[in-house]
């Protein structure tokens, strides 16, 4: 048994909105082994919950999941299939689309199904633009929904729970899920910091880190970063804020040289105060920041450090 992840609720919220507008039924499917009360919990968010409990799907195995879903979809013929835009979702959804010959869009923010036309809104170019997409007319549409963007509310009444009998699944032993690896114990806890000084690719070089460390130390913050900084091994992964890293909600988040792709924004958008510095005035980070500064970091940072030091000196 496990627990329902937040990504599940993002999908349920979008599904409910779409179902209400179209006078349609919302069905949730949960696949796993020893699922326990999770089906009951889901019933508050959908008209019906299909529970598929089988030891063959005790861990996420894309091939078995796909077989289960295909059989259920061919039986129940849903027009719209929503899947969370997660690592698991992306291992499954594209192959489901190919098997069903159904158009798919991923990482979607908004969906609409009006007059038989299915449209979706999603980002392009790292969040610099959005686009409205029209999907070709089809018996099924597959959409992966961006996670961490919608709130979910329980329905007052519970939907019906239907147990799906075990299905015949073709052996897929050419692929084996060996084990889950938990994140290693951390040497620094960025999630409990009040002030975070976060750096991105825009700092240019690992040799500029001491300047950031100095800023962080004068302001009493903890250093964190976006993905490229970890990829380039400038900082260890425990400092990573974003989808595959940490979710932080500090009182102050200083984003330095971070463009603001959703991958990162996911982990910091609920910070109390966000101050962003970037040399690109069109960087998407300014879409979530409270204060923005456009300019050369290496001109701004030394002066900022000096002014903070000066002010703190006067306080003493």
């Amino acid at each position: 048994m496990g627990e329902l992840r937040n990504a599940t609720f993002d999908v349920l919220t979008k599904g409910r909105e779409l179902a209400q507008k179209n006078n349609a039924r919302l069905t949730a499917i949960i696949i796993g082994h020893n699922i326990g009360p999770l089906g009951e919990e889901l019933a508050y968010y959908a008209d019906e919950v299909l529970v598929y409990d089988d030891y063959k799907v005790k861990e996420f195995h894309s091939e078995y999941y796909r077989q289960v879903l295909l059989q259920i979809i061919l039986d129940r013929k849903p027009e719209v299939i929503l899947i969370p835009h997660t690592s698991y979702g992306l291992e499954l959804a594209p192959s489901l689309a190919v098997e069903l010959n159904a158009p798919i869009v991923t990482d979607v923010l908004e969906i609409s199904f009006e007059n038989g036309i299915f449209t979706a809104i999603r980002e392009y170019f790292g969040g610099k633009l959005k686009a409205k997409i029209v999907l070709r007319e089809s018996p099924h549409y597959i959409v992966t929904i961006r996670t961490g963007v919608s709130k979910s509310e329980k329905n007052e009444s519970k939907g019906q729970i239907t147990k799906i009998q075990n299905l015949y699944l073709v052996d897929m032993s050419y692929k084996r899920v060996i084990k889950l690896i938990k994140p290693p114990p951390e040497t620094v806890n960025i999630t409990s910091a009040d002030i975070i000084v976060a750096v991105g690719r825009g700092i240019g070089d690992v040799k500029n880190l001491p300047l950031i460390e100095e800023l962080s130390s004068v302001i009493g913050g903890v250093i964190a970063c976006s993905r490229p900084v970890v990829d380039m091994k400038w900082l260890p992964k425990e400092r990573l804020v974003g989808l595959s890293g940490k979710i932080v909600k500090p009182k102050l988040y200083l984003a330095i040289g971070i463009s603001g792709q959703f991958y990162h924004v996911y982990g910091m958008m609920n910070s109390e105060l966000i101050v962003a510095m970037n040399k690109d005035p069109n960087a998407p980070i300014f879409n979530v920041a409270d204060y923005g500064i456009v300019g050369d970091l290496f001109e701004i940072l030394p002066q900022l450090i000096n002014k903070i030091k000066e002010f703190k000196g006067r306080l003493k």
Partner: protein
Amino acid sequence: MNIIVCVKSVPITTEAELVIDRTGKAVILEDTPFDINEWDEYALEEAVRLKEKFGGEITVVTVSPRDVKEVILKCLAKGADRAIKIVDRSIAEYDAYTIARILHTAIKNMRYDLILCGAQASDDGYALVGVMLASLLRIPYVTMVKGLELANGYVITVRELEEGFEEIVEVKLPALLTIQTGINEPRYASIMAMRRARQKEIISLDLKSMNLTESDLGNWIEIQEFLIPERKKKCIMLCGDANEVTTKVVEILKQRGFLK
């Protein structure tokens, strides 16, 4: 060990102001530099490392509506042995299934042990083509791979999940893996290597020479219009020279009680 690496030539837009054209359906990219998609660069580096260890050949395949010569040369300079470029102005570049179908046609009769793709592309961020291609080829796949090892006809991968979690997944070869950034440190292509790359084999194809017509392709989705994202909350831009903006920042930090 024969490896195919699928690469995409993408516009580098991190510092560009993107302009939507008059139809609303396209972005003007004429003056934007193009480069190899970052994820694909990691995939190519992983292929080169496997080749150095086990021998074999690396073939790079790319599909694009526009010229991709520079990106192809860079891949050859970094260690690919040959390249197949499928360039045709009529290719719907934002339709992942079309791209997967074209790649499938190009690859299905080739001999390979491993196909590596980037986990996603920086321009559209779909994360679709790799798994679609594997499904069309009917070969096993693993996505978001950030570590791999070959053993007895299998590849053991570490794949990335969310919030620091990972999992170990094993698949039988031939297989397709989609590669996550950070799996290795991609090498630079030296000027000498770029020069040598010009001697390597480049096979140029278009849809006609592949006997593909529009009805063979996906055309699953169409971009109706590009939109400029609205700002969720009002971001106050602090203007002025470095002296002025830093004074303003210190003032804000003071007011909010961060400088005690």
